């Protein structure tokens, strides 16, 4: 196994990790701040990919503009879903189960709505102009779009770090042990916060979907594949923990990338393998954020 092979796979894993992180961090954000588990998070990713496709192929928008359209669009749908449906079940007994059931129904509905609007064929996007070629680093030729994604990921991690450590809302978001009642007692407008956070999280999902669209074609049903990957990420990292999501994404991205190159046929099983190993040795995730239990 030569060094350039390892470097190539590492970079490709890093790119996968970036996309995974973008999706999973949205999932973990709503869970951490609002205690809402959005099972349909992957569907917003899928929606983002379709919106980007619509903007580029039908409206002939510039790629980066369509990424914006996708993020904003997914965010708006997310806020609507929260505002119209999810908030009706907050505070209900056994809310957790109902959250899953309700967001599960979102998956089913969004899947078919996407089918209605865009049909069942696979859709893909061309890479944005200027990033169609490859770049040479250390004698390796890497698709420049992949590098761009890694770069965007780094920028987002830095921004997230600044927001989380320097702002009041960031500190609130980071205290993953919060629940909605405690937010309320801090004098925060909880219903509004929930809607906004949901919007931000789903926008992140849509953003990831749009960025991924030139790399993997989308079709209805993509939502569930994505959500399972993100779930594995948060299981590895510890649910509700932002940096855990980052580490989980990195591990999963790299494992996947090397698995695809070495055992292409069985590559998809490796994610599960990592998950099972995590469960055996560190069931609450590597960066678990334990809720304070009081009686």
């Amino acid at each position, binding site marked *: 196994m030569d060094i350039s092979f390892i470097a190539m796979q590492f970079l490709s894993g890093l790119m996968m990790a970036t996309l995974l992180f973008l999706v999973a961090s949205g999932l973990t954000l709503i869970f951490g701040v609002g205690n809402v588990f959005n099972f349909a998070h992957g569907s917003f990713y899928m929606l983002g990919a379709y919106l980007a496709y619509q903007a580029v192929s039908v409206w002939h928008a510039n790629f980066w503009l369509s990424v914006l359209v996708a993020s904003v669009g997914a965010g708006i749908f997310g806020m609507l879903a929260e505002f119209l449906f999810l908030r009706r079940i907050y505070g209900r007994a056994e809310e957790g189960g109902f959250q899953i059931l309700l967001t599960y129904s979102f998956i089913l509905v969004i899947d078919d709505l996407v089918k209605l609007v865009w049909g069942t064929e696979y859709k893909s996007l061309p890479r944005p102009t200027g990033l169609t070629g490859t770049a040479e680093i250390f004698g390796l030729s890497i698709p420049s779009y992949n590098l761009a994604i890694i770069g965007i990921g780094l920028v987002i991690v830095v921004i997230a770090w600044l927001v989380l450590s320097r702002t009041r809302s960031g500190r609130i978001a980071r205290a993953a042990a919060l629940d909605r009642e405690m937010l309320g007692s801090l004098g925060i407008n909880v219903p509004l916060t929930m809607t906004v956070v949901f919007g931000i999280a789903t926008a992140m999902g849509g953003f990831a979907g749009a960025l991924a669209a030139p790399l993997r074609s989308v079709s209805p049903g993509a939502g569930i594949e994505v959500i399972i990957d993100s779930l594995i990420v948060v299981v590895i990292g510890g649910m509700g923990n932002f940096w855990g999501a980052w580490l989980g994404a990195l591990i999963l991205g790299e494992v996947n990338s090397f698995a695809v190159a070495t055992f292409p046929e069985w590559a*998809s099983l490796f994610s599960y393998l990592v998950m099972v190993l995590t469960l055996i040795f560190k069931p609450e995730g590597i960066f678990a954020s334990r809720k304070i239990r009081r009686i």
Partner: protein
Amino acid sequence: MKKSLFNKDIIFWGLFVVVFGSVPFLKQSDYHLMLANSILIWGMFAVAFNMLFGVTGMLSFGQALYYGLGAYSVGLVVKNYGPSLFLPAIGLGVVLAVITSILVGLLVIRLSGVYFTVLTLAFGQLAWQITFRWYHFTGGDDGIQGIMPSGVLENHTVYYYFTFVLVILAIWFLRRVANSPMGLVLRCIRQNPERVRFLGRRVRRNQLRIYVISSFFAALAGGLMTGVTNSIHPDMFYWTTSGEVILMAVLGGIGQFFGPFIGATVIIIIQDVVGARTEYWSLIIGLIMMVMVLGMPRGLVGEIRGLKARFAPGRMSRG
């Protein structure tokens, strides 16, 4: 109170035996028999699933794992060793399900709430992936067709009554479990697991027990279903299969013992009437789920009993 519980059961059992017992005499075609057979099997699956979800509060999104295991045990054994092993293969399926559910259960039960749901889903999808990829063993995406039981069971009516009796036994057993001290402990675990520990009970041990019991019947359902559809397919392991059994339970009412059976009946009939005419089946079940969760969280049976309780004197107890 004891009396009303008894009455309620009698109504269900009476209707159940009369309606399903008479299907072979009233059917206009074998298709009706097949439909009734599917309702029986899925009804049992849903009731067993609800012992996990409605009773113990464990929302498994991975019961398809055991359903598929039951079905593939029968399919593969019959394909490789002939239809005379149909019945032993059903037995093999449930044994494998018990072993698998103990191993998987030990891993997933360590976490609760959303984590539990997510992990059960992931294990289900893992099984689906393996089945899907392992082409030369499982037939991959093609599945396996032409799985028939042998001997008297080849006759559709005989097979129907065979499942009818098994389903009666299964539901009777689960009813006993629900009313037993263990059933009471399971309900208590859903409401207040911490307090159960302070009663000197092991919460996880009890959760594992019901997980295994529920998975046993999921595998039985999968095995029996192969005799109805005569084919197996990797989708039996797919998450939508788990989702469907959840929907049945929620539609019928997760707080009611027999609710999920009613839910299975309604879903299979809707699927038959509507599903054949539209490709937007998941939109329909998505909307049903949404309406149930937002508007009728107690399910059809729960809401009807709630209405009755409002107009009748005396109090209703949870089934």
